[in-house]
């Protein structure tokens, strides 16, 4: 019995049943409630799975502390932060229960004045690295990259207000690239992406694509 249950066909069958159910509802509108409930499951399951990740993270950092690996002190900071934030949050109120206002205020302080600037700072690298990309990557190694760079410059002048002030034509020219070339090419990419996505689904249904079960795909073992 246990051997039968261990077979990989079972999770694949579960996957197939769930996705077919959603699709059947999509095409016919037969069971909207069931479909909605199932989508809600994914969120609940995801939240339950947090424990897996947190265990892995704690094991990683606790081993570092235990072994006194390089930079182990930062692992201590990390673990302390988790507990400080979590405890102040829980004491401040959770799940519709109200808690201690002071704890809530401290929690808000951590969120708003410590974490918010920190995470915006991390996110702002998307701006800085755009220049790294222009500077390091934007070399016309071939004619097609050349086309890309010319269009990029036109669009940058279209987007920045100063471009329109330099030459009014950048407005309509950039808009034409955006509305016509981009839309047309994007359509082609979209169709391809949609088709490819469904093909992965079919392969997974047939049991070829098994990476989501933690196994190498069929043919790669």
């Amino acid at each position, binding site marked *: 019995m246990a051997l039968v249950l261990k077979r990989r066909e079972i999770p694949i069958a579960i996957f197939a049943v769930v996705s077919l159910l959603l699709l059947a509802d999509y095409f016919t509108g037969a069971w909207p409630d069931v479909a909605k409930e199932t989508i809600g499951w994914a969120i609940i399951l995801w939240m339950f799975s947090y424990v897996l990740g947190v265990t892995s993270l704690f094991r990683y950092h606790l081993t570092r502390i235990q072994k006194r690996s390089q930079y182990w002190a930062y692992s201590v900071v990390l673990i302390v932060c988790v507990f400080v934030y979590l405890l102040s949050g829980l004491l401040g109120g959770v799940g519709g229960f109200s808690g201690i206002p002071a704890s809530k205020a401290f929690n808000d302080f951590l*969120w*708003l004045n410590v974490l*918010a600037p920190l*995470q*915006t700072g991390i*996110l702002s690298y998307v701006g*800085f690295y*755009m*220049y*790294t990309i*222009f*500077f*390091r990557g*934007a*070399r*016309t*190694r071939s004619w097609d990259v050349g086309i890309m*760079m010319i269009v*990029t*410059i036109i669009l*940058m*002048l279209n*987007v*920045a*207000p*100063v*471009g*329109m*002030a330099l030459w*009014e034509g950048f*407005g309509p020219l950039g808009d034409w690239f*955006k*509305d016509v070339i*981009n*839309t047309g090419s*994007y359509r082609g990419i979209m169709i391809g992406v949609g088709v490819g996505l469904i093909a992965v689904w079919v392969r997974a249904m047939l049991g070829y694509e098994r990476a989501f079960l933690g196994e190498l795909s069929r043919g790669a073992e």
Partner: protein
Amino acid sequence: MGERVALGTFPLTDRLVFLVFIILVAIPILSPIGLPIPVTDATKKSFKLMDSLKSGDILVMCFEQDMGTFYSGAPPDEAGLRHAFTLAKQRGVKVILFGTSSAGCKVYIDAILMDTKPYWEPLRYGEDWVNFGWLPGFETAMAGFARDVQGTCKVDVYGKRVEEIPMMRGIKTLSDVTGIWYSTNTNPDMLPRQWSPLEYKGLKWTICQTLFASVPWIMPYVDKGSITGYVADQRGAGEYEMLLGKLGMGATFMDAQSLGHLYGIALIVMANVHYLYTRSKTSKSKEEK
């Protein structure tokens, strides 16, 4: 290019690129240059839509942002909010504020309200405007709001029940709302899906405030009319402020943006000139050999 010159573990040229950028951007922040901001038709249209609100009209402003996206969202949102509150004072337009995407929405709304304090201070809370903070559920909450306003907005940020808020009386569904200002980062497709003026009779228009990069994405919806107008990012904010006649955060951003873009172009050109120069040099030395 950056490989040869190194300081510590970090190539020097990269640091130089960042440093020049920081200096370039800091200049207009310290003393605004006042580079020209041409107003596009899209922003003009959105401004006119907002300006068409009359006494007793309901404006819903939904902010799907958090503090992480403050700097791209806040300039246009604050411009819109200023306009809305001005209209509320002058003509008696009623404004409803909330967000649905994450708990960060509430904090974000508090932050932009802080910046627009002079505009809402003379207004009566609960009669001219109301803030519901975060209505959890994202798209579900949006769908819920469209069909059952009272059931979705149960309590406001101060814990007041919706039945006790005078201005909320008589607002049952989305058809009772005149206009929508929907501010989002990368999920503009929720708006036409849930709150389309084509579907709800009373809803006259929707304005989508979104990232500049998301504009191509919403264009098909704008063409079909399921989104009426849009305001894009900080650039839209600068233009909107021009129309409002009072420059603010958006205009400063625009100076910095203009310089930033010119700098980007200069870098592309420089990188290519350097690349072509070194390539011709290496091919020449090969020929000599």
